[in-house]
């Protein structure tokens, strides 16, 4: 279960960011912002290496003492960032990958919605509900 999920556009501004409200939201915004640097490094770094198959899933970006941050970038350079609680060690790589798949699927649906202009903040209720299923239930 994630504590914070963010969708960042190609130009590196947030399209959608939501965190568990019980903890300081500002801290999560800051974490997501700093993780963007790591994402950029991974995207450009692979280009210089052997040009073999590059995956969309970037994996663990960096761990802090409380949280782990995972990243995923689409072909249209939209980045998804998920922050999970470190104490929840039962989360396997596969589960994180499937969370990103669900996010990407519902982001694609948002993109195909004629009422959505690319570059606007995401306001789709369907997207919100998918994200809610992946967040930690606030108690």
């Amino acid at each position, binding site marked *: 279960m994630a504590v914070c999920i963010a969708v960042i556009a*190609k130009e590196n501004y947030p399209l959608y960011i939501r965190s568990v409200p019980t903890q300081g939201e500002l801290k999560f915004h800051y974490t997501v912002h700093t993780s963007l640097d790591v994402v950029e490094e991974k995207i450009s770094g*692979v280009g210089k290496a052997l*040009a073999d*198959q*590059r*995956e*969309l899933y970037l994996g663990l970006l960096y761990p802090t003492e409380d949280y782990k941050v995972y990243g995923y*970038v*689409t*072909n*249209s*350079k939209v980045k998804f960032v998920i922050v999970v609680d470190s104490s929840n060690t039962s989360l396997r790589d596969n589960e994180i990958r499937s969370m990103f798949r669900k996010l*990407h*699927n519902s*982001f*694609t649906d948002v*993109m*195909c919605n*004629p009422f959505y202009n*690319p570059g606007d903040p995401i306001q789709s209720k369907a997207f919100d509900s998918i994200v809610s299923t992946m967040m930690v239930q606030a108690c």
Partner: protein
Amino acid sequence: MADDALFEFLHMEIVALVYKEQATREDIDKERVTCVSTLEAMGFRVGQGLIERFTKDCPTFKDDLDLMKFLCKDFWSTIFKKQIDNLRTNHQGTYVLQDNTFALLTQFSSGKQYLEEAPKYLAFSCGLIRGALSNLGLESVVTAEVSLMPSCKFQVVIQKL
């Protein structure tokens, strides 16, 4: 079964509607240019959405040429049920995509008849290509030309910043 025909009919009606609406307004000189821009803009938005859906499961592209090949093969065949017949490049950002039997033009004629009407029906597809490229990170200018129906060439010039 009837999938291909559905889009072709819809496309014909869209073009007819855009031109009819423009004809009811006063300014005849600007008529052609605005209609083509409207159709191109529609294609642009559709291209953006489509590319998001199609590249969902693909790995990242190595370079521009790889991207253009994807456009010519997978993208074109998913939309028009065939691949681009010929891709030429000067390796400096200009690509020419040639389609010898363009799906939206096959019903018009197989020669020179109705040649002057063809550009209207190509505007949407130009926008489609431009939208797809824009969402993949490449700003471009796409133009189309027809010399012999139903074959047409799309010229893509990548704008390097």
